[in-house]
């Protein structure tokens, strides 16, 4: 297998008024081409910060990374052309219409106006947004907004897609739909790097898991291997395994039974 992403000693410290916050403390990570990688960890573990570094939004304070074949520090623009990113809290303008958000995104990826319009229609069909094209983003439900976020990130058929908690706040039906979608995206050739707090989601979707806590990797492997190693048996629940790894009790979040 070939790696589509690898990092070496990647770290980021936020200077804050109350002193430095070491959000990420030196992460060595590899993502293989074609896999779905689940990036887990409790609140504040440094997941979003890691993603924001890997997507060229935050400059690392230390370390290096190669993302989709390009060096993160010296070729950020080449990296941007090949990755898609859905932020934890989305990125839609409530006052804009769904169609105009999709078209502008296409234009940002250097499609002509006609191409961008065609691509918007195509993505709308793919992500079941056709009926919503002429609504404003403020008029979408949470699940619809999430699908639009993902559609925008797929505009240029990225080689690598980063999803930061894609299903938080969705009802079980919408979550199941989104899982299907993520699997389909992967089957069509895109590598997926996703964070989640839902262990059932990680178990169902991810080929491999990386668990972080306090800005460091504390465990990694296939769900099965982690259960065997930390949970005591391959039949252990991922929840017990997670608690064994991080030493944290599960924090119940919203209505999901298996959130940490």
């Amino acid at each position, binding site marked *: 297998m070939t790696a589509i992403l690898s990092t070496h000693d990647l770290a980021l410290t936020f200077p804050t008024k109350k002193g430095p916050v070491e959000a990420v403390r030196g992460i060595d990570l590899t993502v293989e081409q074609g896999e779905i990688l689940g990036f887990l960890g409790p609140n504040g573990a440094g997941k979003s910060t890691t993603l924001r570094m890997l997507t060229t939004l935050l*400059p690392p304070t230390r370390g290096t990374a190669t993302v989709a074949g390009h060096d993160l520090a010296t070729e950020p623009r080449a990296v941007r*052309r090949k990755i898609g*990113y859905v*932020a934890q809290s*989305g*990125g*839609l303008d*409530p006052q804009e219409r769904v169609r*105009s958000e999709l078209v502008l995104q296409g234009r940002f990826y250097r499609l002509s106006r006609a191409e961008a319009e065609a691509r918007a229609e195509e993505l709308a069909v793919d992500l079941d947004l056709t009926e919503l094209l002429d609504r404003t983003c403020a008029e979408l439900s949470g699940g619809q907004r999430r699908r639009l976020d993902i559609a925008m990130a797929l505009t240029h058929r990225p080689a690598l897609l980063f999803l930061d908690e894609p299903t938080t706040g969705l009802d079980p039906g919408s979550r199941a739909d989104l899982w299907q979608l993520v699997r389909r995206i992967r089957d069509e050739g895109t590598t997926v790097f996703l964070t989640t707090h839902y262990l059932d989601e990680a178990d169902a979707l991810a080929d491999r898991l990386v668990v972080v806590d306090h800005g460091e990797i504390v465990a990694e492997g296939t769900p099965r291997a982690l259960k065997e190693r930390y949970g005591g048996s391959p039949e252990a629940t991922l929840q017990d395994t997670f608690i064994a790894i991080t030493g944290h009790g599960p924090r119940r979040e919203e209505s999901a039974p298996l959130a940490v």
Partner: protein
Amino acid sequence: MRTTPTMTAVFADSLLVFERYARQTLRSRINLIFGLIQPMLFLGFFGPLLRDVPLGREGDSWQILVPGLLVQLALFSSAFAGFGILIEKQHGIMERMRVTPVSRTALLLGRTLRDVALLVVQSLILVLAGVAFGLRAPVLGVLIGFVLVAVLAASLASLSYAFAMRVNSPQEFAPVINSINLPAMLLSGILLPMALAPTWLDVISHFIPFRYLVDGVRAAFVGDYGDSALATGALAALLLSAASLTLGIRLFRRAGA
């Protein structure tokens, strides 16, 4: 290999960004009115008081007041431009755009272009209202005035965007802009020419770049195109915009901003 976008890409991207924000501005007409309220109030309720007051310089009182109000318009309209970015940051819109290959310089220039276009429209309304009150000025002079305030607006807007990239909340943003705007307005002789000021005040006001702009636009409004005040005003506008745009572009391109 570090690839930088070509000039044409920056230009094309700026137009895309301009188009989006121009459309948003047209949709909410509040934007058009917001900056105009103060200058219009001064025009209607303060302007008439100056009619027979000796103002210490060439020109009718409207030819002195309206140029000041144009600069005030730029100060209030463009200095708050960054507010929009604060809202966009909260919605994650900035980050979403910044992970695409769109030129980061264009994200600034396109917005700034919108602010300049808005200001020119507002200036036109203000001058027409001035004419209704009794302003008479040569068309060429008025056009020169528009160019000067447009350059000023570009400077202020990009400074405002640059500042908004550095702060996280409107609560941090608004007080700073307010506390700069009012003294800047008073010290640049926007309402009354600084020729009336005592020496100490006049000296202080020479450190405020807007002062030169106000004087420059006033010279243009009386048709005094050879006046050194006009050249100085143009130079001040040019220097200010070069410095502001450089700073703004730097901040927009910086990865962490």
